[in-house]
């Protein structure tokens, strides 16, 4: 009897939690990531607009899921190179994910129009490696729209993406600039 009450309480409890989350969690498929590798040899840029994200305005939780083969390069050979097992190995690791939380949630008022500086701390899983990262973001609230803009540096070696030999070691930057923009609708 006691056991069944406990089970019931747990079930109700978890139902309550998921109900609470769905009320404040906004899912968006309107987002864009661009990365830039800048060296003296050349600038290489790639873009991806197939990302899926969620923002929980009560807990500050942010999730971004990125299909890795959706990155587009201007140059076809570079795109092939990027996908290959020597670099991002996208066949083996077809998705990357960021999971974090806005650490200064008190500074962001999602109910009031304005521009807020946010610090998002979390873990990034890329190329099968998970590392803690901190993103500085700007959150803009305008009516029912919340826009998240962030810029961060990503060091390839942190995710076991290394290239010491050949032409690529000079033409690809060791640290990339990653720019993310996501539109959420309240």
């Amino acid at each position, binding site marked *: 009897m006691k056991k069944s009450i406990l089970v019931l309480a747990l079930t109700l409890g978890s139902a309550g939690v998921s109900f609470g989350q769905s009320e404040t969690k906004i899912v968006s*498929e309107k987002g864009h990531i661009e990365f830039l590798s800048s060296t003296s040899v050349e600038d290489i840029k790639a873009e991806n607009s197939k990302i899926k994200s969620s923002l929980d305005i009560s807990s500050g939780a942010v*999730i971004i899921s990125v299909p890795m*083969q959706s990155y587009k390069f201007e140059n*076809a050979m570079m795109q092939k190179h990027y*996908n*290959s097992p020597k670099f991002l190995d996208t*066949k083996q690791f077809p*998705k990357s994910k960021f999971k974090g939380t806005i650490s200064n949630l008190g500074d962001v008022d999602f109910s009031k129009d304005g521009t807020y500086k946010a610090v998002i701390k979390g873990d990034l899983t890329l190329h099968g490696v998970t590392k803690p990262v901190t993103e500085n973001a700007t959150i803009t609230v305008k009516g029912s729209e919340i826009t998240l803009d962030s810029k961060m540096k990503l060091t390839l070696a942190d995710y076991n993406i290394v290239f010491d030999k050949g032409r690529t070691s000079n033409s690809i930057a060791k640290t990339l600039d990653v720019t993310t923009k996501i539109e959420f609708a309240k």
Partner: protein
Amino acid sequence: MKKKTKKKILISIGSIFIIGISIVLYLLFAPHRDTQASPIDFRMTVTELVNESLENSKATNDKYLSEDGDSKIIAISGSVASVEMDFVNNQVVRLKEEGDDAGVKCTFMKNTNKNAVALSVGDKITIKGVYRVAASYDEDFEEYEDVIVEECDILRENS
């Protein structure tokens, strides 16, 4: 060495050099594969692809993804569940059958978007595009993620 032989050697080396340079230039600036102009590798219904994905998304990715990113070109048949625009104004047609846990999201391109705009929810169609990632249950989003297919157009075949 005779003058003639010398000349021949020089011409040979010269032509090998030119051919080499051309190959390198071709590889460096070769265009992207044209998905719509390329042959279809697999044909299936939305339900078949979703079930295959949810049963084993890793095996499904292994089957349809290519290491260089020019992954398998598939033709998927099913019902239109929604038509929306993404961040860069491409049309995204979601194919999904009632009762299935997930669907297939097909992103069109600049020159094919107009074909997607004309669609209505419930239309039964076949879409050709390149496979990007399998459907799966995502524990963080607490929901199913669709299969992603890109560079799409509606496939019209004479049956």
